[in-house]
């Protein structure tokens, strides 16, 4: 173990922990905003109760997402000083813009939304949650443009011993950044859809407030069927961009060693990195990898052997994460389609077997999100900025083992504790269900 390895481990731990909370926030903020809008438009108090119940879960989740985000910004300087110095001219800009344009809006209006129920008009209150949702989603755009630049650096020149930005427009229209953004949004929305469906399923199984949870389930299912399908579409476009711009990552995702034209996909496959081949290759779907890579069955796929061993990403974790993500994504399409069809009638509460599946499916989209990021980040190795800077050159020179061991242990303990508390509270309030007594509820004030 050295400072580099520990810093990478710390970034992985803090990043993955942060990312337990972010995807749900992306989607559930929009769904709560939708519910509140329906309430404002119709006056139907079930929508108000839905806003409050799902809003409470949203807030418990939101708190940890926000506070663990600061760690991500600070860590670039603390552990990756050489990186920050070398690419800060470009990489700092999207982070600063994210704070100014998006994070402020999100953080200020969340305050209005939580505390403003009887202070602002119905309409302004609903606008507040929309501003939070937009802020959260725009925030993701700038973060993914920053990450997209690490994956596929554009709009810069190497000058004065560092990478300097020459074309801001290229940075904000980076195809990798934009497709990552699209793919991440719909993946986050899928987490939210399954979260709402799963918790609704729990209550429907118990027979709690069936009208409330049937409607909630229907909202989740309708949203989910659209987003799960879009995850596939954006994922497909994403794969094409990866094949074009990060061919070594693509080869690792599919575990391709030899360069081949018109490459098929083995449904059963297991990489053997030591011998630079696959130990299992069976059930081939002809041409599929070539089609996925370039939408062309005769295209040529560059194998890993074209790259020096030191310039290949670790194949096994990238391959396995990719397969797991893609498999789960396919499963979500099937489940959400079933959920959508079943929730159209009024008897979803009698499909107990299906409700049980949906309850246990809550963690799956979370896992798929984590796997996706493992593919993105491990697949980029050994580069921190693809083709420009190696991860091993990026770590801070002034920090020592004791400091990083201390911080890694500290983060692990603190995050572990907070994670347990947060999940406990989420489960508690999810189980408790919505308040039934509408009359005692604080309602938005009249027009101000």
């Amino acid at each position, binding site marked *: 173990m050295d400072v580099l390895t520990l810093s990478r481990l710390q970034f992985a731990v803090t990043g993955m922990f942060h990312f337990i909370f972010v995807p749900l926030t992306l989607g559930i903020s929009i769904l709560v905003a939708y519910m509140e809008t329906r309430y404002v438009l119709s006056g139907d108090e079930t929508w108000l109760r839905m806003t409050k119940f799902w809003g409470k879960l949203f807030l418990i989740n939101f708190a940890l997402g926000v506070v663990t985000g600061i760690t991500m910004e600070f860590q670039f300087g603390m552990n990756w000083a050489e990186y920050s110095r070398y690419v800060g*001219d470009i990489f700092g800009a999207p982070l600063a813009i994210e704070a100014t*344009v998006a*994070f402020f809006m999100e953080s200020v209006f969340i305050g209005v939304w939580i505390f403003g129920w009887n202070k602002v008009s119905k309409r302004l209150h609903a606008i507040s949650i929309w501003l939070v949702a937009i802020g959260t989603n725009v925030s993701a755009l700038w973060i993914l443009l920053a990450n997209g630049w690490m994956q596929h650096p554009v709009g810069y020149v190497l000058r*004065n011993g560092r990478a300097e930005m020459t074309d801001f427009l290229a940075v904000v229209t980076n195809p990798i950044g934009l497709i990552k953004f699209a793919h991440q949004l719909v993946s986050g929305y899928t987490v939210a859809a399954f979260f709402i469906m799963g918790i609704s399923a729990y209550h429907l199984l118990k027979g709690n407030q069936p009208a409330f949870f049937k409607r909630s389930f229907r909202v989740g299912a309708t949203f989910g069927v659209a987003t799960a399908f879009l995850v596939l579409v954006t994922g497909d476009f994403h794969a094409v961009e990866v094949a074009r711009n990060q061919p070594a990552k693509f080869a690792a995702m599919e575990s391709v060693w030899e360069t081949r034209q018109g490459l098929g996909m083995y449904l059963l496959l297991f990489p053997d990195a030591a011998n630079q081949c696959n130990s299992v290759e069976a059930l081939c779907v002809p041409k599929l990898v070539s089609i996925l890579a370039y939408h062309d069955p005769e295209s040529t796929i560059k194998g890993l052997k074209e790259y020096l061993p030191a310039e290949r990403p670790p194949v096994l974790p990238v391959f396995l994460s990719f397969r797991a993500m893609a498999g789960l994504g396919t499963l979500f399409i099937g489940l959400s389609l079933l959920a959508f069809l079943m929730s159209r009638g009024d008897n979803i509460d009698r499909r107990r077997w299906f409700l049980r599946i949906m309850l246990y499916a809550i963690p799956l989209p979370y896992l798929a999100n984590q796997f996706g990021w493992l593919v993105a980040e491990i697949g980029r190795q050994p580069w921190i900025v693809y083709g420009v800077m190696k991860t091993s050159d990026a770590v801070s020179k*002034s920090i020592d083992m004791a400091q990083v061991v201390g911080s890694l242990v500290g983060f692990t303990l603190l995050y572990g504790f907070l994670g347990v508390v947060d999940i406990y509270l989420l489960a508690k309030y999810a189980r408790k269900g919505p308040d039934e007594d509408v009359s005692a509820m604080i309602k938005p004030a009249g027009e101000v």
Partner: protein
Amino acid sequence: MEFQIIWFVLWGVLWSVYFMLDGFVMGSGMLHHILGKNDGERRVMINIIGPVWDGNEVWLITAGGATFAAFPTTYALMFSYLYTPLLLLLFALIVRGVSYEFRGKENGATWKKGWDLAIAVCNFLPALLFGVAFGNIFRGLPMDGAGYHGSLLYLLNPYGLLTGVLFVLLFVVHGALYATVKTTGELSARALGVANKVWPVLTVVAVAFLAYTYPATRLYDNFLQHPVFLVAPLLAVAALLGIRVLTAQQKPLAAFAASCITILMVVATGVIGLFPNLIPSNMGAEFSLTAFNSSSSLYTLKIMTVVAAIFVPIVIVYKIWVYRVFRAKLTIEDLVGNKHAY
């Protein structure tokens, strides 16, 4: 050249505004037990900052982001050199944020006591750490071409500690005045009492800080060369004295405004004194990180200037609107049965 100066000024403004806004959050948090004698009062103490603390903390994120974008070398070296204090700061800010959210989510006495303690400690620690860090920045860090030669212990020198105490006291008075303005009855009177009691101590520490700054730092050089800038420290002193005059006249809102000016001007004084350094080296001026030798390219600075010129005014407008929405005083009665409050 001009753009580097613009961003140096913005850098200073972001820090000043951050301390002005998060200062009263830290202050009221440090006084959580002293002013909040029972659960009801503690809930009031949390809920007076409830709608705004998150938005206030974003000024810190923005100050960090702006340092990264405009002065990447300073960002890289400052954050890696001050690794351990920043880590403690992060832990404190993380726990502070969740404390507000979690405290009211369970009814057990131990649960609440635990988060109450977390609120007090995790508001005190950042105040102290920021003070110690800025004291050491004013003083200069031990860095040269070979890197950084300091440690956590090195930062705990008398001047750094004095600045830490100064920040803590500034924020305590600031938070007490905020609580005076935002609460009613006995709680408000108690808060005013605390502000008045701490004020003389703050004044003594502030005078000591101003005096000790002369031998410990080179901050006064800029003021001696350009006396017009003396307006910042003079305003800081005038506003500090004004706080006590205004509380004696039973004008807590005006006293809070004076406290805002005090904090803005104390930070401004430090930043003006630093110019053109962001982080001076005390091992030779050639190793200092300045607005000129650590900045981004002109192109990036121009882009960021456009972004800031458009969005910072928008942020300020909606922040002012939010403070207006929540301008009313808060009472325990407001919180009874309110499931949305903390």
